[in-house]
């Protein structure tokens, strides 16, 4: 279920260059973001040329080797309303590891190989980014350029949402009240756009902005799956906020399913 939630959207082709993740800083980690669910569901329907269910699939598992880094516990003592939402003090999400060193919150996308002239329509369903318990849900997500990102505050206290980007316009807006929402869109593909709250220095989220729907985020078990790919040879890149990037080359012919596993080195 979780793996599927994070899986990719169907769609068409295009894409081109793909800016590589320029960053290595930050914190991230998963935590079963329920809010991501609508996005994958919506995207296939919106695709203008149909690869949809007929296409090929790239799926795999992501893990890491080495000692899992120590992830600090978040001090929420300044925010009683957030602290109360956790039975035990939560940890930062820079590295979220599952059983057998499975690595969650890895953004996996097709960085090269799609036809240069392909165009994909952004789904009309928004991706929802929820600020709840002084954390972002989801922590890492993919979104198409032009697709709505609905940012909402479920906490009864001030969050500011700052986007730091290079190819897109960054912004910084405040949501001091529970129930506030703000819709934003990104215009250009960029891996990744950083989102952060300056009131709560531990709050970071990462958006992988793509002009095609072929991306996924690994779930708690480290699995991901990108569906609906037309035949072709693709470069698949996996990005993790702490461990950097890995790439693989995968050739798809027809409706087959190919496996691409990634192994990061803990650092």
């Amino acid at each position, binding site marked *: 279920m979780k793996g599927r939630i994070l899986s990719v959207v169907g769609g068409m082709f295009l894409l081109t260059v793909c800016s590589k993740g320029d960053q290595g800083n930050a914190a991230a980690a998963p935590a079963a973001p329920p809010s991501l669910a609508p996005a994958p569901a919506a995207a296939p329907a919106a695709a203008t040329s149909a690869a949809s269910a007929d296409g090929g699939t790239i799926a795999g598992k992501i893990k890491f080797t080495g000692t899992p880094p120590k992830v600090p516990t978040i001090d929420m003592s300044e925010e009683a309303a957030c602290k109360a939402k956790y039975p035990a003090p939560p940890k930062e999400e820079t590295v979220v590891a599952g059983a057998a060193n499975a690595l969650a919150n890895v953004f996996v996308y097709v960085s090269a190989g799609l036809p240069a002239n392909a165009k994909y329509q952004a789904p009309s369903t928004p991706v929802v980014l929820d600020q709840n318990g002084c954390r972002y849900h989801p922590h890492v997500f993919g979104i198409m350029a032009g697709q709505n990102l609905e940012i909402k505050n479920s906490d009864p206290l001030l969050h500011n949402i700052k986007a730091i980007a290079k190819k897109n316009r960054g912004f910084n807006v*405040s949501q001091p009240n529970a129930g506030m929402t*703000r819709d934003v869109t990104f215009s250009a593909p960029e891996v990744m756009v950083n989102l952060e709250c300056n009131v709560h220095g531990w709050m970071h989220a990462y958006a992988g902005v793509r002009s095609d729907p072929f991306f996924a985020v690994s779930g708690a078990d480290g699995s991901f799956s990108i569906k609906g790919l037309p035949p072709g040879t693709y470069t698949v890149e996996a990005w993790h906020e702490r461990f950097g990037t890995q790439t693989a080359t995968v050739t798809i012919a027809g409706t087959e399913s190919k496996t691409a596993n990634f192994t990061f080195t803990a650092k």
Partner: protein
Amino acid sequence: MIHSLLLMALVATQDTSAGKQVYTKWCAGCHGDNGAGEGPAARHMIPPPRDFTGAVYQIRSTASGQLPIDADLLRSIDEGLPGTAMPGWKTRLSDRQRRDVLAYIKTFSTFFADTTQRPQVLQFGKEPGGGTGAEALRVGRQFYDSIGCRKCHGDQGRGDGPSAPTLKDDAGHPIFAANLHENWRFNGGPTTSDIYHRLRTGLDGTPMPSFSDLIDQKFLTETELWRVAEYVRSLSPSEPPVVRDVIHAPLVTRVLPSAPDDSAWNAVDPYWFPLVGQVIHKSRWFAPAVTGVWVKAVHTRDSIALRVTWDDRSASPDSAWLGHIGRVLATVQSDDSTREQPALWPDQMVVQFPVTIPTGMERPYFLMGSPSGPVYQWRWTSTSRDAAVAGLARGIERFDSLPRGAVGARAVYDHGQWRVVFTRALASPDTASQLPFRSGRAIPVAFFASDGSNGEHGTRTAVSTWYFLALDEPVPARVFISPVLAMVLTLGLGMLVVWRAQQKTSYRRQQ
């Protein structure tokens, strides 16, 4: 059509080449030849110079995320950004030069050439009436709390909120939440209207967000947000403080107010002195956190009390600021070959006098004296709040404490502000090295402040130049009586003359 396009292209080329000349001469030293904010001087500054390549600008009249309009950029060029190293250029460059350089600056980012970017000036409306009344300020304060301003700017607005130590700009450089008591240092201008505009637009590239959504989504009315701006404005003096060179210490007949919050201080005049980074001696310091001191002084027949008040976002040492210290040291280039490791340094205040009151114009070297010309100092450190050490400094790196230096100190730290009272007997048992205080002479005085949580210690400190301290004597009664006597006498004489003249007139008539 084609001709006019060509003409436009030509004009544009001319503009940016002229702008490039101005830029290279006046701007590149900080902002860098390629506009990335990496000029030779950049690594000495916090905040660092703007990186023009991202087209992210703090001071705009447009919504957060949008480009600024030309008038916004021109304003920053003309007026500079108070509280930063960016000066105003209105008086240094011609109108043409400033417009040319503006056009050139825009070429550093592709966003300005992107026709899908359409910056829209926000509708700010006019300030509602009644903004300075008690009720308006109460409402402003209420929303200051409820919309979370205090998270960064602090309960009393001195930039000492719980999130303050973690703040970074977009590039990860350390950044202070503004001290709202110093509106003359606000990047976007000091007025209520300036503050309101910043609340609406946010300061892009910094942690300060836009609060426009509160109005758009009907959580707050425009008037209520104006009240927040008015409350913030009310925290600063109505006019920026003016430096008066001589601190007058009146004579008090009751006991010396040795506690920082003794009510006797309320009746004493404050004097403000600006501090700047110590940039003379290695290692230099261009990013001081303490921007000035407020000083009050009184004396009795046998003792003097000097109260120094300054805003400091942290009572150092405070481990919450360790990350900030690390960012400061990583951002500012050191004079030394090796970069210092962050540590939990204390805060420090130094009050400096000459060893004896000079008879002529000559005073010891202001920067803590010299080997041959020492200065007499009181040194207070936050790790020992209710004590101070008197001693002789012989240059910035040598301080010898005096064994019989009987200077007392008491300090409070209160919501981003230190208030420290120094006390000492006027007379000195050791007149050779410890200044005897006396009235009738202007006594040179200088101040040095370090914020340990900003990585400051040793030569990394904020300094003032020499000012003066005067112990006022009560004005003798004759000063007041003489003019009255003179007036009475003049009046009496005048009346006498008139009376005599009238006598003569009536005498002649009778004849």
